[in-house]
């Protein structure tokens, strides 16, 4: 999995590219923790190019969400591909995260 970081208004946008499975999860976890340790409290995960997520990947999202809740920060997820969106829906994780259809609505809201 590759990640691209950019700044859009007050949000740090993390573009996730590829598969987020057990093999790739530790690298993303490290990246995510680095970002959180830098004190960013408004983060958007752009999942337009993320084509697979497993429980290991969901765990990283949960860790990030927990940390953000601890600092009253904001973590938003956008551009989930339909099959990935269904994973969140079916499992009920859509109730835990703030999910938006696209980057624009994630920033505006």
């Amino acid at each position, binding site marked *: 999995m590759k990640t691209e970081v950019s700044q859009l208004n007050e949000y740090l946008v993390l573009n996730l590219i590829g598969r987020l499975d057990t093999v790739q999860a530790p690298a993303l976890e490290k990246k995510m923790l680095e970002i959180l340790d830098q004190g960013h409290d408004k983060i958007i995960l752009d999942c337009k190019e993320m084509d697979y997520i497993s429980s290991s990947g969901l765990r990283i999202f949960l860790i990030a*969400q927990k940390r953000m809740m601890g600092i009253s920060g904001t973590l938003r997820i956008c551009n989930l591909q339909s099959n990935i969106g269904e994973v969140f829906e079916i*499992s009920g994780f859509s109730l835990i995260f703030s999910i938006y259809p696209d980057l624009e609505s994630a920033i505006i809201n």
Partner: protein
Amino acid sequence: MAVVFGFLPVLLFLFYLFLLDSFKLVRPHLLIWCLVYGIFAAGMSYVGNTFIANTAGVRFETLARYVAPLVEEVFKALLIIFLMIRRQIGFMVDAAIYGFAVGTGFALAENTWYYLHLGPDFNVLLAIVRGFGTALMHSGTISIFGIMLIEGVQSGKSFRRSSITGLLVAIILHSLFNHFFLHPMMQTMLIILILPLVFYIVFLKSNKHLQQWLEVGFSNEVDMLRMIRQGQFRNTRAGQYLASLKEYYEPEVLLDIYCFFSLYLELSIKAKRNLMLRENGFPVIPEPDIKDKLKELYQLKKLIGQAGELALLPLVRMRHRDLWELNQLEH
């Protein structure tokens, strides 16, 4: 000071194990019940040992080395066996911690008896040996029993065989301890060194199993349920397999098999989701219809019968851990 050494170490070790439970598999109220039961088991063991010593005229040495280990481990094990039958134990972690709690209650009761009967003779040295050595031994043996039982059952061995094997190991370890081949202080030091290492390895292995089980199970089940909901299930191998059962089952039974499979997937995914949430300190998502869905699932299980369950075996194993995870949804 003697009281501190005699009672605190095993309690602190139990608390430490409870903190190591990153997936929060252990329920606090059950843990307390295990502690309380351990005290009760100590009482029953005392009665049992005294009875055997008096009626069979057994010498103290024989009692300590062979009879007491058997009596005490059996009484301690009974609650762990009960918890397994009631699907309250799913992995090595919770088996080890519940077992340790039973042993802790047992050891606390024993040491209380010693403290009350020996009075000033319950000195610091004795307290160290009993508090660190004997207490950890009592907790360690029943933990090992629990671990062997869950691993045996989960790997397909029969419940009876797994419990007997685990019990034998616990009894042998206890008996070896009571032989005092080494000086009591040496034995105490060995236990202090070895037991934390054993538990560390067990917890590492258990968490790895849990994560692998979550990883594989969650992904497969979500994929399958997605196909069902999109109406593409029949194009999958699982769907084709179920369709092939038309020759052997009445249509209404086949429908129940399909409904059971779909509902099982949904509930299994939710159970795994709740485990992941608990691991990360999130509260479980309350779903008011969960209990009804569980009832429906068990009802469907009855309707499809053993034949239906056998038919589903290639798709849904329904082994101990699968039933345990559904049980977690009720709490």
